[in-house]
């Protein structure tokens, strides 16, 4: 293990936490469904980078890449289905605001 790996892990961890905070803030504050999806994307990106970083630090890049690929596939399916749901919401309400979803029956 190279001597600067703990330093690298520290720097990248701080960056990952900051990206996670940005995504979480976007998800919590926004009233727009598309922007909420963008916040979710940022959260997933932070997690993906953390998996790759963990693989690099522990020397198991193969396993980390396998997990990251699985995560990316799940991410794209989630986004595609969520975009379909948003489109349905837009067709009915003519808006993508979260406030309009309060009128849903059930």
């Amino acid at each position: 293990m190279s001597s600067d790996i703990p330093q690298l892990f520290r720097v990248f961890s701080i960056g990952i936490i900051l990206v996670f905070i940005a995504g979480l803030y976007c998800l919590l504050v926004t009233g727009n469904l598309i922007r909420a999806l963008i916040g979710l994307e940022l959260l997933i990106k932070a997690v993906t980078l953390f998996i790759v970083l963990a693989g690099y630090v522990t020397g198991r890049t193969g396993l980390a890449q396998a997990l990251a690929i699985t995560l990316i596939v799940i991410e794209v399916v989630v986004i595609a289905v969520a975009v379909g749901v948003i489109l349905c919401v837009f067709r009915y309400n003519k808006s993508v605001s979260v406030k309009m979803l309060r009128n849903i029956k059930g």
Partner: protein
Amino acid sequence: MVINIILIIMLVIAAVGTVMTTRLPRSAIGLAITSVLLTIIMFKLGSPLAAVFELSVCAGLISAIFISILSLMRRITTESRAVRQKEHFHKYWLLPIIIVLAAIALSQIHLPMDFNLPKQPSENDVRIILWNLRHLDLLGQIVILLAGSFGVVVLFKERKNE
């Protein structure tokens, strides 16, 4: 090490810019830039296959999905855009401050980092791990892709009474 620090700072700035931008198409482009920077970092961390997936799927496909859904929606007027920009600023002005404070606080924390893990397995090739050790993951991916495609077909279908 300096390049890594520059890349991670650029990644954080791109993520914050994506959230802070008022207009959604710019936000989608910011997300694509974040993906490209993440790809470069993944290459540098020795994960080229995951990086290629990230570049093609996240920077390419997901950006295309976002842009296409935005093109399906109506444009807003200039007056409502000015109101929305004001609202947006009121909602998001706190984020850069939180990011800077969190960066300062996290840089002060010194956790003991001991990476003495058990002996790693002899095989470290992603192709062999993916096909031999994690084949159930592949099965799960196929099931999720099928479920997702079915969901997209159901959700995007034009109804006759519309």
